């Protein structure tokens, strides 16, 4: 019936009105019937729905997880695409920079304003690439390329053409380089001269006679004449020179105003020995001539010529291993190379690549929010290995550990705080300590033989432990959990710490130190609470044996107490009476939990403190008994009191002692002293 109804209701053409109309024609009974049926159907559907949800619950969860993983992957993909895009951009700039510099003469300034440092570095790196022998030019900080272009050098006297040159106008000087015939590799030009802009006289040579588009550069004692291809190019050169000179002049003026005295000194020095500088320059040039030739020959090998380009390619392809292989190879090769400026320059070019490579690798390890951490330790290991090979183990170590920190943080954040504190702490400890041990294992694999890095790892572990403890403390101590819960949690953490020592990392003492004060505080609080309770109960203790009225009840009670570890059958009399007071039993229970908790928290440092806390609790109870014995009012109850005292000081104490012996901790003197109290009490009662 219900099935049929369901089919009718779920028909796509179902028309409620005609259905009702037809139904109402059949009379009241049929309607009531139908109502019941509909109710039934409703219930069944709800049940079926619930069941379906349960059945597919694990699938729901799985799907959700898959989706989140997919999301992460998409993020990573997005990141990679962006990276690739920027790579493409930088490659474009690399190959076109000379054209750009010409086209964007005035426009380039805006770019430079945005990131002058970056621009400078790129420009000068590009110079290093193209011009042989200019490493000292590129080393000057703040130097920028303003304009460059091909020129023909003419003889200043006869206006005959001498050679093709490429001139680079920097923001403080003009560099002339000749074309290298039969060039190999990326080097196109050979450095000829660098002329400071102050004092550099530029002369526009009017187009008279056969020579067109010429201009002269007068720099005593040299004077050079150059020719451009077009009148427009010449105009650009003259304007650029004029402009740059003016800018430099104003810059110098500012500097001068800022450091007047310094500038004056320098000026005097410069005036004093203009000739000397020249002479010394030519002198050193002579000296260096020979090694230049030597190391240049050495660097003539084909693979060396192509190395910078190869490195670029490897980096672009993210083939970091290949790039590092090349770098190692060249470093090995270059150690045998005679020292000279050409080597220095070549090295500078390689260094530039290595820096790029290092940056790329570091980027790999960088923790960025848009990047998924799913790659995990293995992905990081790749980058780390290469960085170590490049001799950057310190950075690699730092980045690696930072990466791990982020992973731990992420994992901890994934934990939901729900249910009991102990449960959460169990998960927390599981996540934290397994991450820690993973990292340790990974670290040992990634940094074999780099013992310096291990201390960094230890420090890192300690820091991580600190942040772990701060979470731990917040959850455990500040949540006003009971001492038992706290003790359980602390014990959990300790046990995990002990497991870590199997891989050679002992954090237990650090954990203990970090938790020490919090533990003491909470123990003191609990102790005071218990003492308060004892005093409160003592105030209205009438020392009556417990009467359970029937034997069945009494047996039940005895069984209950037995569950806590005490056999009170010897104290039962008259079938339903127990010789122990409620107060004594309660104290016994409290005392057992308290001592158990305390011993869970046991450390050598806390030994005395634990014993003191325990004995102070005991003492307050003993004091109550003593008080009672002295009391006139309770004279008749002496035997009962003594019985209770015997129970507390012998049976309960024995149990406390057993906790100690279970943990192989010597039973402290403070408690032994209390133990001996019983005889004193007995004597007191007999008096």
């Amino acid at each position: 019936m219900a099935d049929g109804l369901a089919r009718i209701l779920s028909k796509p053409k179902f028309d409620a009105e005609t259905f009702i109309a037809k139904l109402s024609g059949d009379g009241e009974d049929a309607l009531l019937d139908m109502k019941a049926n509909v109710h039934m159907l409703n219930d069944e559907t709800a049940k079926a729905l619930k069941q379906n949800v349960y059945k597919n619950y694990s699938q729901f969860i799985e799907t959700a997880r898959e989706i989140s993983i997919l999301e992460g992957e998409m993020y990573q993909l997005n990141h990679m695409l962006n990276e690739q895009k920027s790579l493409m951009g930088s490659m474009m700039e690399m190959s076109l920079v000379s054209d750009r510099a010409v086209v964007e003469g005035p426009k380039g300034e805006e770019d430079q304003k945005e990131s002058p440092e970056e621009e400078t570095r790129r420009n000068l790196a590009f110079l290093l690439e193209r011009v042989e022998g200019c490493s000292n030019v590129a080393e000057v900080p703040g130097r920028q390329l303003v304009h460059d272009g091909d020129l023909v050098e003419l003889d200043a006297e006869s206006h005959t053409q001498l050679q093709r040159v490429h001139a680079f106008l920097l923001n403080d000087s003009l560099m002339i380089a000749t074309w290298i015939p039969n060039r190999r590799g990326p080097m196109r030009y050979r450095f000829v001269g660098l002329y400071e802009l102050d004092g550099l006289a530029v002369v526009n040579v009017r187009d008279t006679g056969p020579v067109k588009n010429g201009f002269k550069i007068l720099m005593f004692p040299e004077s050079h004449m150059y020719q451009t291809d077009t009148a427009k190019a010449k105009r650009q050169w003259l304007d650029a020179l004029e402009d740059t000179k003016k800018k430099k002049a104003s810059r110098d003026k500012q500097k001068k105003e800022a450091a007047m005295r310094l500038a004056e000194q320098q000026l005097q020095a410069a005036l004093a020995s203009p000739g000397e500088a020249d002479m010394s320059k030519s002198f050193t040039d002579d000296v260096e001539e020979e090694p230049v030739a030597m190391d240049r020959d050495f660097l003539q090998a084909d693979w060396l010529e192509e190395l910078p380009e190869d490195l670029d390619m490897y980096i672009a392809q993210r083939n970091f291993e290949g790039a590092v292989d090349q770098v190692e190879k060249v470093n090995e090769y270059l150690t045998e190379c005679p020292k000279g400026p050409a080597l220095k320059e070549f090295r500078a070019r390689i260094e530039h690549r290595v820096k790029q490579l290092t940056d790329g690798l570091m980027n790999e390890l960088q923790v960025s929010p848009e990047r998924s951490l799913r790659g995990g330790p293995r992905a990081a290991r790749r980058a780390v290995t290469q960085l170590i090979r490049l001799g950057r183990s310190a950075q690699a170590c730092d980045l690696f550990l930072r990466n791990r920190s982020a992973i731990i943080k992420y994992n901890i954040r994934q934990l939901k705080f729900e249910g009991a504190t102990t449960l959460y702490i169990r998960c927390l400890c599981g996540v934290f300590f397994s991450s820690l041990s993973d990292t340790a294992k990974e670290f040992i694999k990634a940094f074999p033989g780099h013992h310096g890095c291990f201390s960094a790892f230890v420090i890192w572990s300690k820091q991580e432990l600190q942040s772990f403890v701060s979470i731990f403390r917040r959850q455990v101590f500040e949540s006003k959990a009971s001492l038992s819960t706290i003790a359980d949690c602390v014990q959990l953490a300790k046990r995990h710490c002990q497991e870590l020592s199997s891989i050679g990392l002992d954090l237990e003492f650090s954990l203990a130190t970090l938790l020490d004060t919090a533990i003491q505080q909470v123990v003191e609080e609990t102790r005071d609470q218990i003492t308060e309770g004892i005093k409160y109960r003592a105030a209205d203790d009438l020392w009556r044996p417990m009467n359970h009225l029937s034997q069945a009840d009494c047996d039940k009670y005895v069984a209950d107490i037995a569950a806590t570890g005490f056999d009170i059958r010897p104290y039962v009399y008259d079938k339903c009476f127990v010789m122990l007071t409620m107060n004594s039993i309660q104290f016994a229970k409290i005392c057992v939990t308290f001592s158990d908790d305390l011993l869970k928290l046991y450390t050598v440092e806390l030994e005395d403190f634990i014993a003191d806390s325990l004995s102070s609790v005991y003492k307050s109870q003993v004091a109550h008994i003593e008080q009672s014995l002295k009391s006139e009012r309770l004279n008749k109850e002496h035997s009962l009191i003594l019985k209770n005292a015997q129970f507390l000081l012998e049976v309960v104490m024995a149990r406390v002692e057993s906790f100690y012996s279970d943990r192989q901790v010597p039973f402290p003197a403070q408690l032994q002293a209390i133990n001996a109290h019983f005889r004193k009490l007995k004597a007191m009662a007999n008096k």
Partner: protein
Amino acid sequence: MSSSTPSCFLLNTAMSKAKTQQPAVIHKVIMVGSGGVGKSALTLQFMYDEFVEDYEPTKADSYRKKVVLDGEEVQIDILDTAGQEDYAAIRDNYFRSGEGFLCVFSIKEQESFQATQDFREQILRVKNDENIPFLLVGNMVDLAEQRQVSVDEATKRAQEWKVSYVETSAKTRANVDKVFYDLMREIRSRKMEASRQNNGKQKKKKDSRKKKCVIL
């Protein structure tokens, strides 16, 4: 890369062409003087026989022209400097390249005449030669009614310096050729004199330079 071969070829042909055409002797003349006195106007009148009325400050222009000096074909290389050049170091570099100087002032502007004193001193300092070919030129005689610098005054200064004083007009071309040719003749005679004493002097120079090297 690929373009290097054809341009090299071009270069070679141009070289041989240039070599055959140019006369060997070049006299280098430098125009000095305050801004706006007519250095460029004189140069342009000499070069192209034209007078440029509108004034546009020069930066530094160089011109070259083939001329016949007393029957001999020579080249004159004129460097027209900027009157407003601010940097002494740069001006020094211009002056160093010159063999003779036309120091121009405007007869209707006393300051420009006073400034010639500074130019003279600077030239002597740079060239380190009391007898450097040098002409004091008073320009703009076509505007004689606005004269501020008298002929006597200028002649007196020229005599002090042991140089000639010539008054010119770039507009009317009066004495324009004369100043350039006079200066070229001076330069030529100086060069001849120098070549006569050449051997001994050069040796001396070399010696002194060597000494300097040793000191360092």
